[in-house]
């Protein structure tokens, strides 16, 4: 029974990682860059949701919508101002810029809202469903539900709409896509918009579970979700889901059965092991180098 309960909690945590990992993996897939500022978009999303609920007195759903809207605009702005001018620069320059944006956001948050921790109001009722000694909290259920919903919507979008198809085409071959009349810059903007909007949703789920909001809030979930994306095979959307869920489950199991202190170390050790055996991640595509 304990095992089942750990598993479900792991899936709950993993769902949050998965939603964040999507942002990394989609941006990597299309822009071939690691957006290390993604975690800090989560932080901004958390602050927006916090102020919307605590200061403006908004109910949960409008607060989430506001947070999604702000993060979407923020994501597109970051891309326009920081990454787009570097489109033809080396990958290293873009990576360093991403780290710069990350520090910028963290310090801006510190200036605007101070470094003291704010307590996120409890937004989801305590309790949950219990049967036969197994209790699953509402929050876990909702988190898993949101993750499934996001997965369904996103795969419909990617596979069934022309924008989704154009995005896949861009991630395969940008030059050929432009020659087919696809505006690559717009596709990149849309990708950042979707990834950042999802980050906002993840931020609320995260703060509902760990109710403190502070400027470096996004760093750890960000790096974990990045790990999840690499674990699943960066660039692959199903890979991000699988990687996120597995990472959550491994983390909770490690905490429960091995050691709470070592859980992060174990998570990263598993990542290293997977990459040693399958360097492209679980669902990553192997690109054969032409000689």
């Amino acid at each position, binding site marked *: 029974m304990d095992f089942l309960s750990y598993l479900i909690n792991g899936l709950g945590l993993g769902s949050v990682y998965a939603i964040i990992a999507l942002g990394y993996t989609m941006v990597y897939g299309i822009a071939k860059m690691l957006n290390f500022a993604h975690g800090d978009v989560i932080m901004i999303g958390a602050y927006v949701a916090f102020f919307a609920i605590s200061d403006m007195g908004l109910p949960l759903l409008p607060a989430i919508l506001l947070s999604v809207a702000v993060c979407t605009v923020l994501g597109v702005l970051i891309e326009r101002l920081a990454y787009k001018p570097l489109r033809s620069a080396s990958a290293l320059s873009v990576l360093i810029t991403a780290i710069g944006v990350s520090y910028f956001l963290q310090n801006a948050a510190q200036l605007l809202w101070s470094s003291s921790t704010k307590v996120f109001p409890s937004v989801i009722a305590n309790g949950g469903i219990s049967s036969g000694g197994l209790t699953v909290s509402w929050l876990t259920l909702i988190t898993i539900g949101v993750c499934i919903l996001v997965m369904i919507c996103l795969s419909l*979008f990617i596979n069934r709409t*022309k*924008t989704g*198809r154009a995005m*896949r*085409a861009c991630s395969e071959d940008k030059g050929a896509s432009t*020659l*087919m*009349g*696809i505006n690559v810059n717009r596709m990149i903007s849309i990708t950042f918009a979707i990834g950042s909007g999802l980050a906002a949703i993840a931020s609320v789920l995260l703060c509902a579970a760990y109710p403190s909001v502070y400027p470096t809030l996004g760093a750890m979930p960000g790096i974990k979700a990045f790990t999840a994306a690499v674990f699943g095979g960066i660039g692959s959307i199903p890979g991000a889901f699988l990687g996120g869920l597995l990472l959550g489950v491994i983390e909770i199991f490690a905490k429960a059965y091995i050691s709470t202190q070592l859980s992060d170390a174990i998570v990263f050790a598993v990542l290293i092991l997977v990459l040693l055996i399958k360097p492209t991640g679980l669902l990553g595509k192997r690109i054969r180098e032409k000689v």
Partner: protein
Amino acid sequence: MDESRRPVLEVRELGIDFGGLTAVNDLNMEVYRGEIVGLIGPNGAGKTTVFNMLTRVYQPTRGSIIFDGKDTTGCSVVDMNRAGVARTFQNIRLFSGLSVADNVRTGFHGRIVYSPFEAIFRLPSYRTKERLITGQMKELLEIFGLSEERDNLASNLPYGAQRRLEIARALATQPKLLLLDEPAAGMNPQETQELMAMIRKVRDHFNTSILLIEHDMKLVMGICERITVLNYGMMLAQGTPEEIRSNPEVIKAYLGD
């Protein structure tokens, strides 16, 4: 003026330099509506560079490209595609991770347009337009004998089929001018024969003009109505296949002194 004698493409004194190197210089040519024109020349003559200028992948250093009566100076690659220029590639560049059907569907991107709003709420207009895309996609696959392969990944197709799929994808953008970069490369004589018939069919069925680069002289002489010969980035000769075949300059460029 007679409709068919109006050029869809006019190139005037076109030239491009890369650094200090002049890759193409003083090129004049035109393609009329419904015409199949060949662009030939020895390796390194600048043929693909011309294609890259016509699609605005490269911005020419000199001269002008008038497409469909309009000067295209300042147009982007996407603008050129929307205006009606589509191309295939010398080394096939399909979206290899997408299905055959989706490869063709991407071609309709700029032609059949709906907003994300329509897609999110699955409005009837979204369904109608997606159905339209699917319908036209099926038609194209049928013409190119790819219907059976619809759901396969593009990368799993045999070589000849990949070449056909590239043409189908380019046609999905509904071009007025189709640029084919060595469509017969790597094909055996039998396949080349079929390709020639297909190029003619494309011209008649889609009402498009075709400009093609090719090394296979049987194909070029067999289907092109006019031919432009490039050598060292300069136009060497222009004329009907018969004229080109008997032109001493061309023979010299191809065979050496």
